[in-house]
């Protein structure tokens, strides 16, 4: 058993690609070897900026000899069949093996030397390597068929035990020679075998193991911070990136001018991280300190003094830029930025960002006025005062919570105000430089410009939650704006027929929908989805119609009653405009007709889209999707809070013994009804109902008992549902379980007397209807 070492040495591999490259190398290597029946006891992979390496443990010296057997015709088959088989296999009659009256062609494949398998496998792996981006280079690139690699490939070390596996690809020949650190040890090194690879490189200032480089940086940076009396702000992504940029990492702490601390800490952290890949530190009080930690790739003989000084200057220039943006932005009231939003196209068929802001402001106000978002003083105020993210948040001064006593009118005004200002920071200098600071900067500017703290907080947090696991806002002003923004986004794109399909979701509508679900669930918002969608789509239609009218002529814009809110009347308005001779735009205008068609379908499409999103989201919370289907199937339930309460009660119930048996009884009843083609409603339902309520014969005891049980359970279940007490509704249904079982045990539904048969079918239909007051049990699996 022998170990194999492969090193592919190239010019600098982008840090972000190194982890995946290691995985791909291991995967391709395993697959190539498997083709020859070889497998390693273990595979270890390494990546540095300049090399990708693999060590495979305990490879056998050669592959196993295999004998391949191909089944031929029966010995009794006509001679033509045998001739055909001999032609196919290239064998003669006496080379075939006869067994159980069948011919077999047996080929013995001797074992192959592992080295020769590797010599074929490695070039195949290199040629097939799935780099996210690859390139050609050098004289060979006269042909576009020349070898592609992430950056120019320079050397291959391939050693099986201590023997070089001969490989040649694109003019590179394998050897035992590699090179050390670019500056510390630029000369060649000879590797003996996989056993000394890691240590020989270490001696030449290359730490081949990425995990070791990460711990060197983590430890060094933490120590450097501690030595300065500070705490390092941990950042896993940055750690991995820095480890991917150095073969010999040396973390160094530097200081920047304290005056830059006047800039918000998130801005400093982002500048340091994104532009320079530096860590930042906190002081003892938890505030951002005027210090950074950079990671050099060299052990300089002045202990890095010059390196730190150079990096300090670069950071200072960056922070000076950031400070310039911050100071300049602060001078312009957010209100004054609105005209600039009119110049940014949100989507060519949905107008500008200013149009969106207008719709969101109306929606935010509507959400409060309808009593959907209310003051909720009892709720906790999590989500306020969070920094960049939960695990690396710097402390930011939180505004005081919204005063609980203020009325609905004030809340509506705050929600509208926050919505009107929420997108203004998109045209500030700082957000132009760092788009990821959108929202946050608006919050800072609003607070500095004297906006109500709740309004400033809403501007800051209105993009949240940006996905599962993100903080979900609970402050009512923020909730109203965040919800309105996301509702408008999904409604707008559905209104113009831009629906997500398969893996394509260019406008991140699934994420917006998830955000809406999380907001509703977290604050238990009583929102009728169809109503909200109608309102939002109506707003889109109105602004679309307005745009059409403006295009036709300014005076006609006045035709639009800007207070008209419902979708239907806006549609009518557009249609009446189309018939207006003065307008000159006709129904067959492709833009207008396409919009009318897609917007008309938007609300039902949105409801089914949300049903799907809800199932995806709830699956992660352990809720069964069939139960969600069972509740959705009732129709008309689009209040998610009530829907989920119903689903949860249902999930608890169906796992009890009563639940399981009731489900079995229900299914038996439903199957009989289905077989008999008995409708729940419509023609034939009325006589059935009559038959059920007034039996004209003496029912059997079990039949009478079931009637009695239904008489009691039906109103109890209906009452409980009306009260939204779904546990009680389930309990009411549970009382049916024993009578149903008894009925099926004692009574024959298909009685020879057709009247009795009808009456009993009617009774079963009543059972089914009673169960359906809670959920459509036919959708429940099991």
């Amino acid at each position: 058993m022998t170990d194999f070492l492969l090193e592919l040495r190239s010019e600098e591999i982008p840090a972000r690609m190194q982890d995946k490259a290691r995985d791909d190398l291991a995967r391709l290597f395993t697959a190539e070897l498997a083709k020859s029946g070889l497998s390693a006891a273990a595979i270890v992979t390494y990546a540095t900026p300049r090399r990708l390496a693999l060590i495979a443990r305990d490879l056998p010296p050669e592959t196993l000899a295999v004998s391949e057997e191909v089944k031929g015709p029966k010995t009794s088959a006509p001679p033509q069949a045998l001739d055909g088989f001999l032609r196919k296999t290239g064998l003669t009659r006496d080379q075939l093996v006869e067994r159980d009256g069948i011919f077999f062609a047996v080929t013995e494949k001797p074992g192959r030397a592992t080295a020769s398998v590797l010599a074929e496998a490695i070039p195949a792996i290199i040629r097939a390597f799935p780099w996210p981006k690859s390139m050609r280079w050098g004289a060979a690139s006269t042909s576009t068929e020349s070898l592609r690699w992430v950056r120019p490939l320079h050397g291959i070390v391939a050693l099986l035990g201590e023997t070089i596996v001969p490989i040649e690809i694109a003019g590179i020949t394998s050897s035992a020679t590699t090179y050390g650190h670019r500056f510390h040890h630029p000369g060649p090194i000879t590797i003996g075998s996989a056993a000394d690879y890691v240590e020989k490189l270490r001696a030449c200032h290359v730490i081949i193991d990425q995990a070791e480089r990460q711990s060197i940086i983590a430890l060094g940076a933490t120590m450097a911070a501690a030595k300065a009396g500070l705490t390092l702000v941990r950042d896993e992504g940055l750690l991995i990136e820095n480890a991917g940029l150095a073969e010999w990492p040396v973390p160094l702490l530097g200081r920047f001018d304290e005056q830059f601390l006047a800039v918000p800490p998130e801005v400093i952290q982002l500048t340091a991280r994104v532009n320079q890949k530096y860590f930042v530190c906190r002081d003892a009080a938890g505030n951002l300190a005027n210090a950074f930690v950079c990671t050099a790739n060299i052990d300089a003989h002045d202990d890095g003094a010059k390196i730190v000084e150079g990096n300090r200057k670069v950071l200072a220039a960056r922070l000076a830029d950031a400070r310039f943006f911050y100071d300049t932005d602060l001078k312009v009231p957010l209100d004054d930025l609105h005209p600039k939003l009119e110049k940014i196209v949100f989507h060519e068929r949905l107008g500008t960002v200013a149009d969106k802001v207008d719709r969101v402001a109306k929606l935010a106000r509507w959400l409060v006025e309808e009593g959907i978002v209310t003051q909720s003083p009892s709720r906790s105020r999590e989500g306020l005062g969070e920094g960049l993210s939960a695990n690396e948040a710097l402390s930011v001064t939180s505004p005081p919570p919204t005063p609980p006593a203020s009325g609905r009118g004030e809340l509506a005004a705050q929600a509208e105000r926050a919505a009107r200002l929420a997108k203004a920071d998109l045209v500030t200098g700082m957000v132009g430089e760092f788009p990821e600071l959108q929202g946050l900067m608006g919050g800072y500017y609003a607070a500095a410009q004297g906006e109500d703290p709740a309004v400033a907080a809403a501007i800051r947090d209105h993009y949240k939650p940006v996905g599962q696991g993100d903080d979900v806002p609970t402050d009512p002003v923020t909730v109203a704006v965040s919800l309105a923004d996301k509702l408008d986004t999904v409604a707008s794109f559905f209104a113009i027929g831009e629906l997500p399909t398969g893996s394509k979701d260019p406008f991140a509508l699934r994420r917006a929908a998830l955000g809406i679900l999380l907001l509703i669930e977290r604050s238990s918002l009583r929102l009728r989805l169809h109503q909200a969608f109608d309102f939002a789509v109506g707003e889109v239609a109105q602004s679309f119609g307005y745009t059409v009218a403006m295009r036709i002529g300014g005076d006609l814009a006045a035709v639009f009653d800007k207070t008209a809110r419902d979708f239907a009347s806006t549609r009518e308005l557009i249609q009446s405009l189309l018939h207006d001779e003065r307008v000159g735009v006709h129904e067959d205008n492709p833009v207008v007709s396409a919009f009318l068609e897609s917007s008309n379908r938007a609300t039902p499409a949105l409801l089914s889209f949300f049903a799907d999103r809800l199932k995806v989201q709830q699956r992660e919370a352990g809720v069964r999707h069939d139960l969600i289907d069972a509740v959705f199937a009732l129709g008309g339930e689009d209040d998610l809070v009530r829907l989920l309460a119903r689903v949860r009660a249902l999930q608890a119930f169906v796992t009890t013994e009563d639940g399981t048996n009731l489900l079995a009884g229900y299914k038996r009843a439903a199957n009989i009804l289905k077989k008999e083609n008995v409708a729940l409603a419509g023609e034939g339902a009325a006589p059935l109902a009559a038959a059920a309520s007034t039996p004209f014969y003496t029912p059997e005891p079990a039949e009478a008992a079931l009637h009695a049980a239904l008489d009691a359970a039906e109103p109890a279940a209906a009452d409980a549902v009306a009260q939204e007490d779904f546990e009680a509704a389930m309990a009411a249904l549970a009382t049916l379980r024993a009578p149903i079982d008894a009925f099926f045990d004692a009574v024959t539904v298909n009685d020879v007397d057709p009247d009795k048969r009808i009456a009993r079918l009617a009774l079963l239909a009543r059972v089914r209807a009673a169960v359906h007051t809670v959920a459509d049990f036919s959708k429940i699996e099991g």
Partner: protein
Amino acid sequence: MTNPLSFQRMILTLHDYWSDHGCLILQPYDMEMGAGTFHPATTLRALGPDTWNAAFVQPCRRPTDGRYGENPNRLQHYYQYQVILKPSPPDLQDLYLGSLAAIGVDMNLHDIRFVEDDWESPTLGAWGLGWEVWCDGMEVTQFTYFQQMGGFDMKPVAGELTYGLERLAMYIQDVDNVYDLKFNDAGVSYGDVFLENERQMSTWNFEVADTDTLFDQFRKSAAECENCLSRGLPIPAYEQAIKASHTFNLLQARGVISVAERQAYIGRVRDLAKGACGAWMEKNGWAV
């Protein structure tokens, strides 16, 4: 670094270095352009199978980067040192590091890093893979292996080095303000040469340039480019594309091009540049 190089001495040192390594030393192109890559010695000469090694300084104009001479790091007019080597030699990184050593960068005392930065020029229909080279955290060079130019695959690939001369000099001379750079060793500073230029040009770029004239120029350059192409003259056609590109940059600085229009203008310039590159390929008989 006991006696750091002046700005002009640094340029002369790079000229000597790249001349010694087989490059033609060319002079700046006599037209306004946003980057050294626009120089026909890069754009047009990068195309086709011929060996081509050249180095030159190219003044770059980026009207929107003007700061009226008040920002110590930003200029609307600055110099790039441009090296183009086709095919890209196998030791291009070492050659480059040698040039840094020549101008006085001690790589055992400073941290040189190759950080992923893929280059793309939407107006030239060009892209390549490479890095920005960091020296103690500062980007001093753009290092690119061109993969496409004017929409054509490179056959073979050319390596391009673009040094930011002012940044590199600020670093070597250890000054914080570009205007404090020593231009020569006789007491003339960068500010003496260029500060007033920055002030006046910023004012013109942002406030004065007549936009009607500029729009007109853009249209005329585009039309003239087409005219040259129809007459089988790729070089003058390419010059008109450069003019259109710079006129577009000026219009942007004047803030008269909306976000929606911007893409259309870039697309127009790209079509002109691609047209010129295509005609150049055809003229030279390089089958497309």
